[in-house]
C-alpha cells in the first residue's frame, strides 16, 4: 500500500497541496486532471524525484518520505518514454538489473524473457532513435518492469501514440496489470483512458485532489467542473457481452440489452455520445439497431443545447437543440423512445 498525507509541492507558479491518497497493493490507480494541473510533478514527488515542501509518505507500511528514488522499488514510464539514446534496446532493458548488481549469468536470460513479454525481442540490437512510438513505449515498459518494481508510475503513457496504437496499448496495459500484479499509478488528462483502465480515479483540480472514487462514482457525482463536463458529454455503462444476434454483440447493462459492434467478450465498459441518440414520441423504424423506451427524468439547459436524462433504466443522457425540445414538448415524466445505431456504441 502507498499512503500520502498532506503532501505539498511547489510548482513555481502555484502549489500542489493537501494531497492525501491511499493506494492499495495491486490497484490500477488513475490520477486525472487537465494539462498543467501538476500531475506529472505529483508522480515525480511520489517517486522521490521532485523535492516536496511538506508531507509524509508510506510505502508498504514503512515511512519512506526521504528515501532515495533508487531505494523505492518503483519504475517510471514517461510520456516520451525517455529511453537512453546511447544504449541499445537490450542495454536499456538491462540497465536497471545492472544498477541493482543482478548476477551477470542470469542477466541476459532475464532481459530476453522480459523483451518477449513486452514484444520487443526482435528489436534488442536497435537504438531507440530507430523505433516507432509503440516500440519505444514497450521498451520503456520492459525497462521499468524488469526490475520487478512494487509500483509502476505511468506519466501520460498513451497520449503520444496515434489512436490505433493507443487502443492497442490500452488493452496491453490492462492485460499486463492482470498478469504482473504490480501497483500502477497512471497519470492522464484523458477521461476515456481513466474510465477504461482505472479501478479508482483521483481527480486533480486547482492543485489539490478534488475527488477520489471508482470511475462510475465519479461520473455519477462529479465533484468538479472538469468531471461534470465530461459526465454530461458521455454515457458510460458497465455490461456483459452475451450471445451475438444478427452480427451484432448483445451487451447486458443491468437488465437492458444493447446492440453494439465489438470483438470483446465478458465484462466490458461502453460509452455513447449524447448527440448520437435520437428521441421520438413513438418507436421509429430505421436502420438503427437500438430502440428503447424510457421516461424523461431530468432536463438541463446549457445555452443553445439541452441535455435530457432519460431513465430506461439505466439513465441515458441525450443532447438536443432547444428547437427540438420545444417541438417534442418534452417535460419530466414524459414517456419517449430513444434510438441509436449499434456502431455508435463504443465498447472498451
Amino acid at each position, binding site marked *: 500500500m502507498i499512503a500520502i498525507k498532506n503532501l505539498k509541492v511547489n510548482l513555481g507558479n502555484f502549489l500542489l497541496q493537501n494531497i492525501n491518497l491511499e493506494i492499495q497493493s495491486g490497484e490500477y490507480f488513475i490520477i486525472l486532471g487537465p494539462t498543467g494541473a501538476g500531475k506529472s510533478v505529483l508522480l*515525480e514527488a511520489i*517517486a*522521490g*524525484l521532485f523535492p516536496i515542501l511538506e508531507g509524509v509518505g508510506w510505502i508498504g507500511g514503512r515511512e519512506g518520505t526521504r528515501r*532515495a*528514488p*533508487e531505494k*523505492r522499488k*518503483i*519504475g*517510471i514510464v*514517461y510520456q516520451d518514454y*525517455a529511453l*537512453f*539514446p*546511447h544504449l541499445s534496446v537490450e542495454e536499456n532493458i538491462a*540497465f*536497471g538489473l545492472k*544498477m*541493482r548488481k543482478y548476477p551477470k549469468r542470469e542477466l541476459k536470460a532475464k532481459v530476453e524473457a522480459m523483451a518477449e513479454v513486452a514484444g520487443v525481442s526482435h528489436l534488442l540490437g536497435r537504438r531507440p532513435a530507430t523505433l516507432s512510438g509503440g516500440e519505444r513505449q514497450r521498451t520503456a515498459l520492459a*525497462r*521499468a518492469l524488469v*526490475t520487478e*518494481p512494487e509500483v509502476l*508510475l505511468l506519466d501520460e503513457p498513451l497520449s503520444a501514440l496515434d489512436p490505433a496504437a493507443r487502443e492497442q496499448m490500452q488493452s496491453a496495459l490492462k492485460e499486463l496489470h492482470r498478469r504482473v500484479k504490480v501497483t500502477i499509478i497512471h497519470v492522464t488528462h484523458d477521461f476515456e483512458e481513466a474510465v477504461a483502465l482505472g479501478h479508482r480515479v483521483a481527480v486533480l483540480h486547482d492543485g489539490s485532489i478534488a475527488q477520489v472514487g471508482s470511475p462510475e462514482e465519479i461520473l455519477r457525482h462529479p465533484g468538479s467542473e472538469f468531471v461534470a463536463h465530461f459526465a454530461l458529454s458521455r454515457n458510460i455503462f458497465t455490461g456483459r457481452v452475451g450471445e451475438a444476434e444478427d452480427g451484432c454483440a448483445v451487451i447486458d447493462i443491468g437488465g437492458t440489452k444493447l446492440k453494439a459492434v465489438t470483438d470483446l467478450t465478458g465484462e466490458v465498459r461502453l460509452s455513447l455520445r449524447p448527440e448520437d441518440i435520437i428521441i421520438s414520441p413513438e418507436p421509429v423504424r430505421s436502420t438503427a439497431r437500438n430502440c428503447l423506451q424510457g421516461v424523461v427524468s431530468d432536463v438541463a439547459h446549457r445555452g443553445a443545447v439541452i441535455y435530457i436524462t432519460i431513465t430506461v433504466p439505466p439513465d441515458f443522457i441525450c443532447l438536443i437543440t432547444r428547437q427540438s425540445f420545444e417541438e417534442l414538448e418534452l417535460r419530466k415524466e414524459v414517456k419517449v423512445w430513444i434510438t441509436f445505431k449499434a456502431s455508435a456504441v463504443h465498447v472498451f
Partner: protein
Amino acid sequence: MTKIRSWARPDSMSLVFVLLGAIILLFIFAPIIKTVVSSSPGVLWNNLLEGDVYYSILLTVYAALVSTVIGLFLGVPLAYLLARRRFRGKRFLEGLIDVPIVIPHSAGGVALLFVFGSNFLAGRAFGSIGISFFNTVAGVVIAMMFVSIPFLIDSSREGFKSVDVRLEKVARTLGASPWRSFFRVSLPLAWRSIFAGSVMMWARGTSEFGAVLILAYYVPFLGQYVRVAPVLVADRFNSFGLDYARPVTALVILISLVVFIVMRTIAYRGEKA
C-alpha cells in the same frame, strides 16, 4: 542518393553578403596560408630540430594538455551544476566564468601572480608542498588554465543542458545512485560537448601569450630553459625581425591546425551520420 540542387536567382542582397563574407574569409586565411607556404618544408623541418623550437613546442603542447586535464576534473562538475540547478545569482556566476575571456591576458597574469606568487595565499599553501608558480611549468599551466577554462565550462554546460533531465530520473528509479546516473547517463550523453570544449580549451591554452609572459616567461623544462611557443615567436620577431620569426611561426600554426582539425573531426564523428 542524388542531391537536387536548385539555383535561386541571386538577389542583390545575397551578392553583397557573399562578397563581404569573401573579404573576411580572405582576411583570416591569407596571412595563415602565406606564412605556412612561404617557408619550404626543409626549412621547417630543420627549424623543428632546433632545440629551442622543439622544446618550446613540446612545453606548449604539454602544459596546455595538463591544464585541460585539470580543467576537466574541476570544471565539468561546475558545468553540471550550472546546467541542472537553479539558484540565485546563477546568471551572474555564468557571466563571471567568462571574465577571463574579456580582460587583457597580461592583466590576468598579474592577477594570478597576486594569488599564486610565493608571498600570497595560494602561493604560500602550494609552496609548503613544494610547488611554486613563478617561472615554472606549473606557472605556465595555471596561466593557460585561467584564460582557457571558460571554453570548457561553457561548452560542457550546454552539453549537460541538452541531456533530458528525465533520463537521469529514470536512471535513479532503476536503481542508480546520483553518481552512477551521472557516469552512466549524463556524462556519456554530454561527452561530445565536453570533448569539443576540451579541444577549445587546449587550443586556447597553446596560443596563450600575455598571462604566460607575466607568470612564467622562461621555465626549466626537461633540463633546458624554455619559453612557450607564442612567447618564442614574439621574442624572435622582436630580436631578429620578420624573416627569422617566420619559420617558427609557420610551424606553430601548422601544428595547432593539424591537432585542432583532428580533434574536431573526432568530436563530431558520427554526428548526423
